């Protein structure tokens, strides 16, 4: 058995679960309330839901979902621009599957495709370059969404396209950065928080150090975590332990992947292609230097310039009644939104958190909507 498989070992996980639960009880008792942690990363949200961890920690730890779903935080304005792109004659929009259903102010890429736009899902942006080469009469615009994890992938793709002389390929960059978003969340004075689970794959690129500011500026316990059952339990254990001991540091519990300085090659590529700009986040508003736009040296691959895409007009952040703003900041649970599960469902989503299967509301809807009537098998 590879050591990697042992991170999903059921027996081991169940044992650790016992420890975590016991430790959580102690901490909760000491605090006089359940500890409140935020998982920054949407993939953590899903993993936690899949494990049924919230049901196992109920009354001991409250796990809230942070702004780490790139789909959920993509602003209306940006979606509207993507929709405008898709409507241009001769343009093929390439994207990861996640973006398809996210609503802008009037439409979504899914609806545009249904209306005749050429919108294609690619597993990798390199597949979009190959598609562009095979269809020279189309301008293929790949939507650059995602955080530090995805930005170097797109940067690499761009460099490859330039090297191969592909003229009909470009990028619409809507990449975002995690540390500024965490700052925006933590600087909310109303927020009550005992610790953060930090995104493992963003950290793989940025390195552990990128998160030191959390301790320095906010004095909160935090931990970088992987995504297997053991990873998440180890991370929870670490947070509870820091709380228990009254410590606060940025622990790295995903050492098999995350280094102190991250992936320097990847960071270099990001820096080469992109520059930091102020961008709006759904639920968080404009955050300074939290987005990545293509550098001037890549104008020939920048869809905004190549295709002359005007910025779409700003729109109200939320549909009436939607509590995404509070949910994205970790201030409310999805079940506390009054539209949740009656008006707003994954099939007919109202707010962004319901759209992506990784969105906090969608994860709650799918996995934790009802508490069971009987017990387990």
């Amino acid at each position, binding site marked *: 058995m*590879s*050591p*990697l498989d*042992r*991170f999903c070992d059921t027996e*081991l996980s169940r*044992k*650790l679960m016992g*420890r975590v639960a*016991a*430790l959580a009880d*102690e901490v909760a008792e000491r605090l006089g309330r359940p500890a409140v942690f935020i998982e920054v*990363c*949407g*993939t953590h949200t899903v993993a936690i839901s899949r494990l049924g961890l919230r049901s196992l920690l109920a009354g001991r730890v409250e796990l809230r979902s942070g702004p*780490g*779903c*790139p789909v959920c935080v993509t602003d209306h304005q940006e979606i509207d621009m993507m929709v405008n792109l898709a409507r241009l004659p001769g343009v093929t929009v390439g994207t*990861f599957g996640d973006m398809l259903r996210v609503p802008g102010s009037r439409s979504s890429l899914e609806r545009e495709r249904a209306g005749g736009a050429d919108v294609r899902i690619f*597993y*990798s*942006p*390199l*597949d979009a370059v190959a598609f562009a080469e095979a269809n020279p009469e189309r301008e293929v615009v790949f939507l650059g969404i*995602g*955080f530090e*994890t*995805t930005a*170097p*992938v797109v940067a*690499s793709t761009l*460099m*490859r396209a330039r090297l191969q002389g592909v003229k009909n390929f470009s990028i619409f960059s809507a990449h975002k950065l995690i540390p500024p978003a965490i700052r925006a969340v933590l600087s909310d004075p109303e927020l009550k928080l005992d610790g953060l689970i930090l*995104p*493992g*794959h*963003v950290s*793989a*690129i940025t390195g552990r150090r990128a998160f030191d500011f959390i301790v320095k500026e906010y004095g909160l316990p935090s931990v970088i975590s992987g*995504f297997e059952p*053991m990873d998440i339990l*180890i991370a929870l254990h670490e947070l509870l*332990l820091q709380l*228990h001991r009254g410590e606060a540091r940025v622990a790295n*519990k995903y*050492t*098999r*992947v*995350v280094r102190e300085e991250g*992936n320097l*090659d*990847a960071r270099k*590529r990001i820096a080469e292609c992109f520059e930091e700009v102020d961008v709006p986040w759904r639920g968080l508003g404009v955050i300074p230097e939290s987005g990545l736009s293509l550098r001037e040296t890549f104008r020939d691959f920048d869809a905004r310039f190549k295709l002359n895409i005007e910025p779409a007009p700003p729109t109200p952040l939320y549909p009436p009644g939607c509590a995404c703003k509070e949910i994205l900041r970790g201030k409310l649970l999805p079940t506390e939104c009054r539209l949740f599960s009656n008006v707003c469902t994954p099939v007919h989503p109202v707010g962004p958190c319901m759209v992506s299967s*990784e969105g906090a509301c969608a994860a709650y809807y799918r996995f934790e909507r009802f508490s069971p009537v009987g017990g387990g098998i």
Partner: protein
Amino acid sequence: MCLGIVGKVIKVTAADDTAIIDVHGARREISIALLGQVKVGDYVLVHAGFAIEKIDLKEAEQMVKMWEEQLNDVTPGQVL
């Protein structure tokens, strides 16, 4: 927010910075442009068709081993 999957490198084509990885029998060509040296047998973390980091198996081994030892310790009431 960023799906990463562990794959074992079963072929490297340095010329175009690609490798074939195997995930429980599923194979796919990926790019290794974001990594330095990659060799057959390495485990890599793959995101959107790119290897974004090598997996340090020793670190993995150490961490699970530590936990296995701790968790198999039968001292009753042990919580830390």
